[in-house]
């Protein structure tokens, strides 16, 4: 193949650190959000499917779930979105100090959410092996709990990277992806909270 007038497309000038849908990792995070989100959708669908078999929900002498602690944990999770948003903005400006400050605040809040989640489980007022209602409620809340714990450790490790100075420029987009993941977790918990804790009272 003659190479005399070999036309070339020179890409040496392209950036190596990009944010949002231009970056591969953004799509990877979106992929896992879709998987986990659809698993939660199916878990809630199973919860509502099991509801058809019962006359009253929760069945028998099981009391309604408490509202105090779960409401606090919803607020905490919603509030966590703000520091993560600021960390995202700081990451886009490659501002290391800003990222460290807001990321640590976000990590602390999501840690608090993890602790509160244990009390959310107790607030269900039912053991998982009492009947189908207990099993389904525990399944939904525990599955979301795994996501919060995952998110907490992800933010913790990211924060550790930036604090110890080992973080590189390519980790800034990871911060904005972590922020996106946090928005997803907080909003899904708001929806699950309404279904699991208010559902028995309202629906």
């Amino acid at each position, binding site marked *: 193949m003659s*190479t005399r007038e070999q036309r070339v497309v020179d*890409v040496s000038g392209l950036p190596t650190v990009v944010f949002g849908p231009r*970056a591969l990792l953004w799509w990877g995070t979106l*992929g896992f959000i879709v*998987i986990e989100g659809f698993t939660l959708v199916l878990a809630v669908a199973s919860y509502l499917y099991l509801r058809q078999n019962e006359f009253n929900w929760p069945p028998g002498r099981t009391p309604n779930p408490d509202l105090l602690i779960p409401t606090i944990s919803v607020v905490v999770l919603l509030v966590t979105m703000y520091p993560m948003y600021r960390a995202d903005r700081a990451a886009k400006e490659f501002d290391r100090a800003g990222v460290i400050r807001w990321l640590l605040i976000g990590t602390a809040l999501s840690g608090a959410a993890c602790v509160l989640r244990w009390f959310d489980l107790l607030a269900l007022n039912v053991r998982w092996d009492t009947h*189908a209602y207990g099993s389904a409620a525990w399944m939904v809340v525990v599955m979301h709990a795994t996501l919060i714990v995952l998110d907490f450790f992800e933010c913790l490790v990211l924060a550790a990277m930036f604090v110890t100075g080992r973080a590189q420029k390519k980790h800034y987009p990871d911060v904005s992806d972590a922020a996106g993941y946090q928005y997803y977790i907080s909003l899904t918990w708001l929806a699950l909270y309404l279904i699991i804790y208010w559902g028995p009272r309202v629906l």
Partner: protein
Amino acid sequence: MSSTEARVPAGLLNPAERELMERTWRPRGGVWGWLIATDHKSIAKRYIITAFVFFLLGGIEAFLIRLQLARPENHLLDPDQYNQIFTMHGTTMMFLFGVPIQLAVALYLVPLMVGTRNVAFPRLNALGYWTYLIGGLFLYVSFFLNTGPDAGWFAYVPLSGPQFGAGKRVDVWAQMVTFTEIAALTAAVEIIVTVLKQRAPGMSLNRIPIYVWSVLVTSFLVLFAMPSVALASTAMLAMDRLVGTHFFNPAEGGDPLLWQHLFWFFGHPEVYIMFLPATGYVSGIIPVFARRKMVGHTALVLSLVATGFVSFGLWVHHMFTTGLPQLGQSFFTGASLMIAIPSGVQIFCWIATLWAGRPKFDTPLLFVIGFIVLFVCGGITGVMIASVPFDQQAHDTYFIVAHLHYVQVGAFVFPLFAAFYYWFPKLTGRMLSERMGKWNFWLFFVGVNVTFFPQHFLGLMGMTRRVYTYLPETGWGPLNLLSTVGAGIIAASVVLFLANVVRSLAAGLPAGNDPWGGHTLEWDTASPPPPYNFAHIPVVDGLYPLWERAPGAPVVTGMAAGKRQVLVTSVMDAEPESIYEHPAPSVWPLIVALAIGVTFIFGIFTPWAFLIGPALMFTPLVMWFWPKRKEPHERSFAEEPA
């Protein structure tokens, strides 16, 4: 590819840079190199070989079943062994061979066909393979310890529940599903991101090869189908059997039908996960052997997408006899019939291409023709059982066994063998023997028909599925014996295929870059391809790059030879957007996979494993992402300290 002229035009790699690139991308040798490999070709080759070993094991189990059923009142297997073996046959073929091999072949071919150097997330790819391997080994070690699952490959509750599913057998099945589901999901995410973001410049959406389209649609199916079985098997059935939850306990509000809904919501898309890549192979092979462009490229792509969507809407046709309301069942009959239309479109386009082209009858095309014949028969019996009244007679009988094997062996294994014969030269650099290939095809084709066509009549004569024996006066003896003979022919054909592979690895004809005159990018590089696939990433200017390539077509330059760089392009028109530096090979995915293994294997015996396991996983996961300190001169901009 670049000429050996002294003066190399601006930007092209001179021999010194080429040698540097060779060193940068070359995977490390030895066992350690094997454990830390992240090159998509070495992982995918392993994946294919492992899946094929499970195919052989599944085949042996199938032959044991046929031997037991060869004559009435046979005492080769007692009921306990028979239940374990038919469950292992179904589970192995569907979970350990079906889905994995389609994703494995895709992981090998997709980067080559879209013109990039590696899959999007190479370490995640390694994790996927190791998790799959651990799951498969775990299932087979349990089977040899007499703890193989024995409630059928879809393990209907309450037979698989805590009271009637004694011992740890069904737990083994439930956790094995988790392993294979993690592996499939990781592969699906990688394929989607590779196809959307790493295509060669110029490969806009309407220039993506059909095989890549079929694998993209399959990956979206995996994304939305696997969670359903993961939820049903791990989060519900395993918990029912471990900590006494009541998801499926009818006395405490649970519902056995919930299991069937969740399982088949995954089950039917799963068979399309195995079928769509098979149509991709066929649509990739026919133009090459008909020596003509495919008729109705857009029609084929749209029918792939349509099949993908509709496949989520027909799972209830597995549950027509459970007493669901009549109106609901009619909707699913409609959906089940509707899905026959896109399949019809594909068949018509294939036949039209063969008619308008000049077909050359090599082994790949023989397998494709065999596929079309078997698939039309399987598709028609599928339309038959889509009707509720007839399904009430045919459900859970050997009519269904015949249909599913016509559609699985005919429409999935035949195109897979066509793909083996077609892409084997690219994987190994050697041609498979055509003479043995033709024998392999005809034995397989005759074997399948002799084995499974009589089973249609057995089904209508009342022979139900999963029976370990039957009475002589049922009159099923002769047809079952005939079916066993057919199974022997299939076994001979598979042994012949193995001989062909072994012989050609040792002394096959060297294949060169493009033995068949293909039109997709993978035939543009050496076979087996170098670790970096393309020295210069090609620029694509048509749907059939190699057939329509003008001399001196442009290539991409300007990527550093000393770094593992991959070009990231836009989703719609594949314009270069950025350069992404791939992580180096690493052992951490293997360690994380082992930690996952510990979590779910001990999760059978104690719920605490679901706390200790993730704790074990924390360190390797951190080490997986922890950045290495780089020397200033080695660093690129992305690796500058934050």
